[in-house]
């Protein structure tokens, strides 16, 4: 099969949800050891941690944090989706309704959050 054909076979929402969940999980797995190492600085070398935390003021780091939150959100909702898909014997319309309700409540929560900050 050609490469275009490979892509064509997979161009449907369920496969895209699968790959998004998988890739965000891998990216988080790469990030987490680094994250824990930075946290450990608080105990081992606090002065170095302070120096490091000033980096978070940089725009590029702030942008990276947006990416990180995106990865976390995408992975969390991907996991919830999988658990609903595999553990709840719901009909497709019930699942669509549940997904819609979750998305709507997430949106409202975000609006409140933005207002709060």
């Amino acid at each position: 099969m050609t490469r275009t054909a490979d892509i064509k076979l997979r161009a449907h929402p369920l496969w895209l949800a699968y790959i998004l969940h998988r890739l965000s999980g891998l990216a988080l797995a790469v990030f987490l050891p680094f994250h824990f190492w930075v946290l450990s600085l608080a105990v081992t070398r606090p002065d170095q941690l302070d120096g490091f935390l000033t980096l978070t003021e940089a725009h590029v780091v702030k942008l990276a944090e947006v990416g990180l939150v995106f990865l976390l959100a995408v992975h969390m909702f991907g996991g919830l989706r999988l658990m609903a898909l595999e553990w709840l014997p719901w009909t497709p319309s019930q699942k669509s309704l549940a997904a819609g309700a979750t998305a709507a409540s997430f949106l409202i929560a975000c609006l409140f959050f933005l207002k709060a900050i």
Partner: protein
Amino acid sequence: MQNLRVTIERGPDQPNAQREFDVPAQANQTVLDVVSWIQQNADPTLSYRFACRVGMCGSCAMMVNGVPRWTCRTHISKVLEGDSVTIGPLRNLPVIKDLAVDMDPFFDKWVAAEGVHHGALTRDDPIAPVDPAEAARGQADAGIECINCSVCYAACDTVTGNPDYLGPAALQRAWTLLNDSKDSARNAILEAVSGVGGCHNCHSIGSCTAYCPNDLDPLSAIAGLKRETAKSFFKRGR
């Protein structure tokens, strides 16, 4: 449009060998009609498989532009890219020759998943009543229209990555029987589908459900098996 440009993947002696054919376009023409025209008019050595031509026997599935389809019920106008189409043998199965694949692994897995009827009654027993309104019967009825075409098996990336995986069709058959009140081998089925190549290999990618030509839902059937095997594990310890 006068002619269709049809590329056929030939094999397995010439791996990745492709041959192009010009096929006269008709107002009403299925992918299978196109393949048949080539075999009858351009290249009699072309091998392919079909039988009923009405979407019941499940023998004519092929990869059409990279997507598995039942070719007898796929209108060529629906899959043309410009005036071109590429037709190849089904994915995930050994190629015998050209467009004909060896279906043995597919049916061997069907049997390995206990996808055979396990009766408990004899001809002397009264016929067991089947209640169509029963929830389990609804689950069984959902998967019963499978025609064994192997489209889901060809679409499945998990089968590609793990040759031992039983695949969507066999597991859906197991789920159908598990919900069939006439079948008496519940534990044997659960045992068969929770083994090394069983339902827990499924990554819920969903290509099976996306491409099933009969609009069946093997993804949900496999999810059902995951639930039942998990329940059985916590109840019976296996």
